[in-house]
Protein backbone atom coordinates (compact mmCIF):
# COMPACT_ATOMS: atom_id res chain seq x y z
CA UNK A 1 0.00 0.00 0.00
CA UNK A 2 1.03 3.62 -0.46
CA UNK A 3 3.01 5.03 2.40
CA UNK A 4 4.41 8.49 3.17
CA UNK A 5 6.90 8.81 6.01
CA UNK A 6 7.99 11.94 7.76
CA UNK A 7 10.12 11.95 10.90
CA UNK A 8 7.67 11.76 13.79
CA UNK A 9 10.19 13.14 16.26
CA UNK A 10 10.39 16.90 16.56
CA UNK A 11 13.44 18.56 15.07
CA UNK A 12 15.12 20.98 17.45
CA UNK A 13 17.64 23.43 16.04
CA UNK A 14 19.19 26.73 16.98
CA UNK A 15 18.35 29.99 15.32
CA UNK A 16 20.49 30.69 12.28
CA UNK A 17 21.08 27.03 11.44
CA UNK A 18 19.64 25.16 8.45
CA UNK A 19 16.70 22.88 9.18
CA UNK A 20 16.34 19.80 6.96
CA UNK A 21 13.13 17.81 6.96
CA UNK A 22 12.66 14.50 5.16
CA UNK A 23 9.73 12.99 3.31
CA UNK A 24 10.02 9.40 2.08
CA UNK A 25 7.39 7.49 0.17
CA UNK A 26 6.79 3.96 -1.09
CA UNK A 27 4.44 2.39 -3.63
CA UNK A 28 3.76 5.77 -5.13
CA UNK A 29 4.63 7.62 -8.32
CA UNK A 30 3.79 11.25 -7.61
CA UNK A 31 3.60 13.77 -10.39
CA UNK A 32 3.96 16.56 -7.85
CA UNK A 33 5.13 16.90 -4.29
CA UNK A 34 4.00 19.77 -2.09
CA UNK A 35 5.09 21.12 1.28
CA UNK A 36 2.76 22.85 3.72
CA UNK A 37 3.23 24.60 7.03
CA UNK A 38 0.74 24.14 9.86
CA UNK A 39 0.66 26.22 13.02
CA UNK A 40 -1.19 24.95 16.13
CA UNK A 41 -4.95 25.38 15.82
CA UNK A 42 -4.76 26.51 12.19
CA UNK A 43 -5.17 25.06 8.75
CA UNK A 44 -2.15 24.13 6.61
CA UNK A 45 -0.61 26.81 4.42
CA UNK A 46 1.00 25.99 1.07
CA UNK A 47 4.73 26.65 0.79
CA UNK A 48 6.24 25.00 -2.27
CA UNK A 49 5.42 22.60 -5.09
CA UNK A 50 7.93 20.58 -7.09
CA UNK A 51 7.25 18.46 -10.16
CA UNK A 52 8.61 14.98 -10.79
CA UNK A 53 10.93 16.25 -13.51
CA UNK A 54 12.42 18.95 -11.27
CA UNK A 55 15.34 18.24 -8.97
CA UNK A 56 15.24 21.37 -6.87
CA UNK A 57 13.03 24.39 -6.18
CA UNK A 58 13.80 27.49 -4.16
CA UNK A 59 11.73 30.25 -2.62
CA UNK A 60 13.46 32.80 -0.43
CA UNK A 61 14.95 30.81 2.50
CA UNK A 62 13.21 27.59 1.48
CA UNK A 63 14.59 24.85 -0.75
CA UNK A 64 12.99 21.58 -1.78
CA UNK A 65 14.66 18.67 -3.52
CA UNK A 66 12.88 15.74 -5.14
CA UNK A 67 14.63 12.45 -5.91
CA UNK A 68 12.22 10.05 -7.64
CA UNK A 69 14.86 7.30 -7.63
CA UNK A 70 15.32 7.44 -3.87
CA UNK A 71 11.60 8.25 -3.47
CA UNK A 72 12.51 11.12 -1.20
CA UNK A 73 12.07 14.85 -0.82
CA UNK A 74 14.16 17.08 1.42
CA UNK A 75 12.87 20.41 2.69
CA UNK A 76 15.44 22.94 3.84
CA UNK A 77 14.98 26.19 5.74
CA UNK A 78 18.17 28.23 5.79
CA UNK A 79 18.97 30.84 8.45
CA UNK A 80 16.11 29.49 10.53
CA UNK A 81 14.22 31.77 12.90
CA UNK A 82 12.00 31.06 15.93
CA UNK A 83 9.05 32.14 13.75
CA UNK A 84 9.75 29.10 11.55
CA UNK A 85 8.67 26.83 14.42
CA UNK A 86 5.67 24.86 13.15
CA UNK A 87 4.68 21.47 11.79
CA UNK A 88 5.64 20.85 8.18
CA UNK A 89 3.60 18.47 6.04
CA UNK A 90 4.56 16.90 2.77
CA UNK A 91 1.86 15.87 0.33
CA UNK A 92 1.97 13.78 -2.82
CA UNK A 93 -0.19 14.24 -5.88
CA UNK A 94 -0.13 11.26 -8.21
CA UNK A 95 -2.19 12.79 -10.95
CA UNK A 96 -1.45 15.21 -13.69
CA UNK A 97 -4.89 16.71 -13.93
CA UNK A 98 -7.39 18.53 -11.80
CA UNK A 99 -9.02 15.26 -10.78
CA UNK A 100 -6.16 13.98 -8.65
CA UNK A 101 -6.01 14.37 -4.89
CA UNK A 102 -3.30 14.91 -2.32
CA UNK A 103 -2.08 12.30 0.17
CA UNK A 104 -0.48 13.88 3.24
CA UNK A 105 2.26 12.68 5.55
CA UNK A 106 1.84 13.03 9.30
CA UNK A 107 4.17 15.99 9.46
CA UNK A 108 7.33 16.88 11.34
CA UNK A 109 7.38 19.49 14.07
CA UNK A 110 10.24 21.98 13.85
CA UNK A 111 11.31 23.91 16.93
CA UNK A 112 13.78 26.76 16.45
CA UNK A 113 15.24 28.11 19.65
CA UNK A 114 16.79 31.58 20.00
Amino acid at each position, binding site marked *: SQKIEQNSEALNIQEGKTATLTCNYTNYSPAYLQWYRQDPGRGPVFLL*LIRENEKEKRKERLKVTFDTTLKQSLFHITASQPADSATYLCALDSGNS*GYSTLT*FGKGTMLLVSP
Partner: protein
Amino acid sequence: NAGVTQTPKFRILKIGQSMTLQCTQDMNHNYMYWYRQDPGMGLKLIYYSVGAGITDKGEVPNGYNVSRSTTEDFPLRLELAAPSQTSVYFCASSYWAGELGKEQFFGPGTRLTVL
Protein backbone atom coordinates in the same frame (compact mmCIF):
# COMPACT_ATOMS: atom_id res chain seq x y z
CA ASN B 1 -11.07 37.86 -0.42
CA ALA B 2 -12.00 35.93 2.71
CA GLY B 3 -10.55 32.72 1.20
CA VAL B 4 -12.01 29.54 2.71
CA THR B 5 -14.32 30.00 5.66
CA GLN B 6 -15.70 27.28 7.93
CA THR B 7 -18.43 27.29 10.54
CA PRO B 8 -18.72 26.49 13.35
CA LYS B 9 -15.25 26.74 14.90
CA PHE B 10 -16.11 24.35 17.72
CA ARG B 11 -18.96 21.95 18.36
CA ILE B 12 -19.82 19.27 20.88
CA LEU B 13 -22.27 16.60 19.76
CA LYS B 14 -23.92 13.78 21.58
CA ILE B 15 -23.70 10.27 20.14
CA GLY B 16 -26.40 9.80 17.52
CA GLN B 17 -26.90 13.50 16.79
CA SER B 18 -26.44 14.95 13.32
CA MET B 19 -24.89 18.17 12.11
CA THR B 20 -23.62 19.97 9.04
CA LEU B 21 -20.21 21.56 8.83
CA GLN B 22 -20.28 24.54 6.52
CA CYS B 23 -17.53 25.50 4.07
CA THR B 24 -17.51 28.45 1.66
CA GLN B 25 -14.82 29.78 -0.63
CA ASP B 26 -14.86 33.06 -2.56
CA MET B 27 -11.97 32.35 -4.95
CA ASN B 28 -14.11 30.71 -7.66
CA HIS B 29 -12.16 27.48 -7.29
CA ASN B 30 -13.55 24.39 -8.97
CA TYR B 31 -12.07 21.87 -6.58
CA MET B 32 -13.04 21.50 -2.95
CA TYR B 33 -12.06 18.97 -0.30
CA TRP B 34 -12.92 17.83 3.21
CA TYR B 35 -10.22 16.38 5.46
CA ARG B 36 -10.13 15.20 9.02
CA GLN B 37 -7.03 15.42 11.19
CA ASP B 38 -6.64 13.35 14.33
CA PRO B 39 -3.91 14.14 16.90
CA GLY B 40 -0.46 13.19 15.61
CA MET B 41 -1.90 12.05 12.32
CA GLY B 42 -1.86 13.46 8.85
CA LEU B 43 -4.83 14.81 6.99
CA LYS B 44 -7.21 12.14 5.74
CA LEU B 45 -9.40 12.93 2.75
CA ILE B 46 -13.11 12.37 3.41
CA TYR B 47 -14.79 13.66 0.23
CA TYR B 48 -13.88 15.93 -2.62
CA SER B 49 -15.60 17.72 -5.47
CA VAL B 50 -14.30 18.75 -8.88
CA GLY B 51 -17.20 21.08 -9.60
CA ALA B 52 -20.79 21.90 -8.78
CA GLY B 53 -22.88 18.74 -8.83
CA ILE B 54 -19.88 16.37 -8.80
CA THR B 55 -18.57 14.71 -5.65
CA ASP B 56 -16.46 11.66 -4.94
CA LYS B 57 -15.30 9.64 -1.97
CA GLY B 58 -11.89 10.00 -0.45
CA GLU B 59 -10.03 7.67 1.88
CA VAL B 60 -12.41 7.80 4.88
CA PRO B 61 -15.98 8.60 3.68
CA ASN B 62 -18.00 6.32 6.00
CA GLY B 63 -20.38 8.22 8.26
CA TYR B 64 -20.29 11.39 6.15
CA ASN B 65 -22.15 12.89 3.22
CA VAL B 66 -21.52 15.91 1.03
CA SER B 67 -23.25 17.96 -1.61
CA ARG B 68 -22.04 20.64 -4.00
CA SER B 69 -24.92 22.66 -5.39
CA THR B 70 -22.84 25.81 -6.00
CA THR B 71 -19.19 26.55 -6.78
CA GLU B 72 -18.81 28.39 -3.47
CA ASP B 73 -20.29 25.95 -0.94
CA PHE B 74 -19.33 22.43 0.05
CA PRO B 75 -21.13 21.34 3.25
CA LEU B 76 -20.19 18.14 5.09
CA ARG B 77 -23.01 16.25 6.80
CA LEU B 78 -22.50 13.94 9.76
CA GLU B 79 -25.36 11.55 10.37
CA LEU B 80 -25.59 9.61 13.64
CA ALA B 81 -22.41 11.02 15.18
CA ALA B 82 -20.03 8.54 16.82
CA PRO B 83 -17.06 9.11 19.16
CA SER B 84 -14.75 7.98 16.33
CA GLN B 85 -15.74 11.15 14.48
CA THR B 86 -14.15 13.34 17.13
CA SER B 87 -11.54 15.21 15.13
CA VAL B 88 -10.57 18.51 13.55
CA TYR B 89 -12.16 18.98 10.14
CA PHE B 90 -10.57 21.08 7.44
CA CYS B 91 -12.12 22.25 4.21
CA ALA B 92 -9.85 23.22 1.31
CA SER B 93 -10.18 24.48 -2.24
CA SER B 94 -7.92 24.61 -5.27
CA TYR B 95 -7.81 25.37 -8.98
CA TRP B 96 -6.06 23.55 -11.77
CA ALA B 97 -3.08 25.53 -12.99
CA GLY B 98 -1.88 23.06 -15.61
CA GLU B 99 1.86 22.39 -15.38
CA LEU B 100 1.96 24.44 -12.19
CA GLY B 101 -0.11 21.83 -10.36
CA LYS B 102 -2.66 22.81 -7.79
CA GLU B 103 -1.93 24.14 -4.34
CA GLN B 104 -4.71 23.84 -1.83
CA PHE B 105 -6.08 26.68 0.27
CA PHE B 106 -7.32 25.59 3.69
CA GLY B 107 -9.94 26.95 6.02
CA PRO B 108 -9.33 27.46 9.76
CA GLY B 109 -10.93 24.16 10.74
CA THR B 110 -13.83 22.94 12.88
CA ARG B 111 -13.01 21.14 16.11
CA LEU B 112 -15.71 18.53 16.73
CA THR B 113 -16.12 16.44 19.87
CA VAL B 114 -18.64 13.61 20.06
CA LEU B 115 -19.52 12.48 23.58
